């Protein structure tokens, strides 16, 4: 019993780590621009596909090869994210949020269906980038892929913390998220900061995509829809706009979802995420770690 519980916990942590990576991207963009980037889940998908194609050029199955593919995907998606922002969102910087939301939906659909057209809708095999091994510990089987997910997530989050709190760019990001007009007044170039934020968030989504594809090696152009929605729920759960909140929300959601999936009600596991969303929005709309925002009239 205990070993089953621990195994499920580990499964949940691994899944939750991926949700956390994607959720951080959502929350960063929301913090700065106050809108939900629906296309984020498709950047996640793009990361997996870039990884699939990059893997053809490296030695698959070595740590170094795996890291190369990861880096390529992260850089590629950072570029993609910045391009999307430049072309689709920047012209609407001053438009009502609803319009930008709709544009985001449009970009998301565009990425999904272009992917279906050009990559085919059928699932593709994602190669095992890192060497695969299993470890047994106290009745729990730990796959090296799961360890990779947790390790990479922790490293990326520490790197993110460093960037946000110890660098000038990070300080500028926080300034813009607090008050864009004031930030401009002190000489920050909002455009550059926003591009940087998108780039960073997209890179994290790409990492999430690669890690997801490592654990579930069947990728298809619509693979981002469900994880994206759930990661968004995770971001809201943790408090949208708060990076530690997104990470916490992701972990909680991953663990809850895994336990539901292992129970007799496993087919309800998708609904659980939305149930949590609605409960949180009714009872604590600012999320677990979020701060209440006063709306000025």
């Amino acid at each position, binding site marked *: *019993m205990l*070993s*089953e519980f621990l*195994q*499920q916990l580990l*499964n949940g942590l*691994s*899944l939750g780590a991926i949700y956390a990576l994607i959720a951080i991207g959502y929350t960063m963009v929301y913090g700065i621009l106050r809108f939900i980037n629906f296309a984020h889940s498709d950047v996640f998908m793009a990361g997996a596909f870039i990884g699939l194609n990059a893997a053809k050029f490296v030695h698959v199955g070595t740590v170094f090869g795996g890291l190369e593919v990861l880096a390529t995907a992260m850089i590629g998606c950072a570029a993609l994210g910045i391009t999307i922002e430049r072309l689709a969102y920047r012209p609407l910087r001053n438009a009502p949020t609803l319009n930008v939301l709709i544009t985001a939906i449009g970009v998301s659909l565009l990425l999904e269906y272009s992917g279906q057209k050009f990559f*085919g*809708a*059928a*699932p*593709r*095999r994602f190669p*095992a980038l890192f060497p*695969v091994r*299993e470890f*047994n510990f106290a009745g729990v*089987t730990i*796959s090296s*892929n799961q360890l990779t997910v947790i390790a990479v997530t922790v490293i990326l989050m520490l790197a993110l913390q460093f960037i946000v709190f110890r660098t000038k760019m990070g300080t500028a990001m926080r300034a813009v998220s607090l008050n864009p007009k004031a930030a401009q007044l002190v000489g920050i170039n909002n455009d550059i900061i926003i591009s940087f934020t998108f780039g960073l968030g997209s890179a994290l989504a790409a990492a999430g995509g690669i890690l*997801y594809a490592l*654990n*579930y*090696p*069947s990728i298809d152009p619509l*693979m981002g829809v*469900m994880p994206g929605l759930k990661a968004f729920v995770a971001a809201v759960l943790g408090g949208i706009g708060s990076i530690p909140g997104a990470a916490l929300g992701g972990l909680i959601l991953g663990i809850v979802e*895994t*336990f*539901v*999936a*292992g*129970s007799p009600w*496993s*087919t309800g596991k*998708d609904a659980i995420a939305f149930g949590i969303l609605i409960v949180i929005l009714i009872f604590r709309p600012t999320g677990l770690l979020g701060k209440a925002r006063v709306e000025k009239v």
Partner: protein
Amino acid sequence: MAFLPKRFALTVSTVALLALSACKKQDAAAQKQDAAMIEVGEYASLTGKEAAFGQSSHQGTVLAIEELNAAGGVLGKKFDLITEDDSSKQGEPATIVKKLISRNNVVAVLGEATSSRSLEAAPICQADKVPMISPAATNPAVTRVGDYIFRVCFIDPFQGAVMAKFAKNTLKLHRVAVLTSVSSAYSVGLAKYFKERFIADGGEIPAEQEYSEGDKDFNAQLTAIKAAGADGLFVPGYYTEAALVCIQARNLGMQIPIFGGDGWEAPELIQIGGAAVNGCYFSTHFSPENDSPAVKDFDAKYGARFNGETPDGMAALGYDSAGVLADAIRRAGSTDGPALRDALAATKDFPGVSGMITIDANRNATKPAVIIAIKDGHFKFVESIAP
């Protein structure tokens, strides 16, 4: 005035739509008889989640139609195959089949490989009295829809029993867990029949878990199955999820035998599953390794027509569905609905490449099943089990 524009719009739209509808409906039955070619409709999942099935069966059907036309067709007319893709999506077969029947005036419909989508189209064919022949839908409910619905393959009560016997007698398993997809009629049905037979033979089902089509993560369900102490796992689903299940099971340290039904048969099973599916088994309708001259001949023809590919169960059944249809038209002497239906129902000992096809009183075919193992990344014939 607010309502004036509305009235105006209504009038304008009505006029426009009436103009559009000005095309008179032709007399469908007369059209079918007068046509210079025999129109045959096919709906298949050429793209999407079960693309492998649709593409395979489509290729088999195309090969058969081309052969028939090369030999001069039937009743002096050649066949015109009209194929539509349902993208493996629910809701599409209904639209497509309606279009095939009303717009293309087909005399019969071939399709589909999956039970869920066949169940969707069958009531429409039945209501319009157009015979439908499914190449590979194995859920018994499909032909129960009505007397115009046929299939050229075995049904799941038989397939479930085959796998149950195989698990008990050949693999010597006593506690087999079942992991079912709730998203397909096929999976739910096959799971049920397997369980019935396996328990009747003295086995136990220590764990039953479920998943939905499109799911990627089965760790939770597999962990529960591992904890229940099963010595085997039956996964009566489709190939994409089956491959992922095998990978994740092996990653969790589960070395127990994993097996499934004909939903596993696709090259993607090995592409996605890789080393994890080696040593797994599944039942299906046909093996290209069969020694009979008919099969060897079919293998050669198929390879010549389709870039050296080896045919699988879906291709063989697609080929046979067209063959059975042509044979019935020949015997009926017409393409008229009721006559064709009766001729199909009377099909006896048709020499199909997937086996001898006799349509029984329930409009199903009774045929042997073959067990395939996956060894070194290839499908290998293990044994054939007669009904």
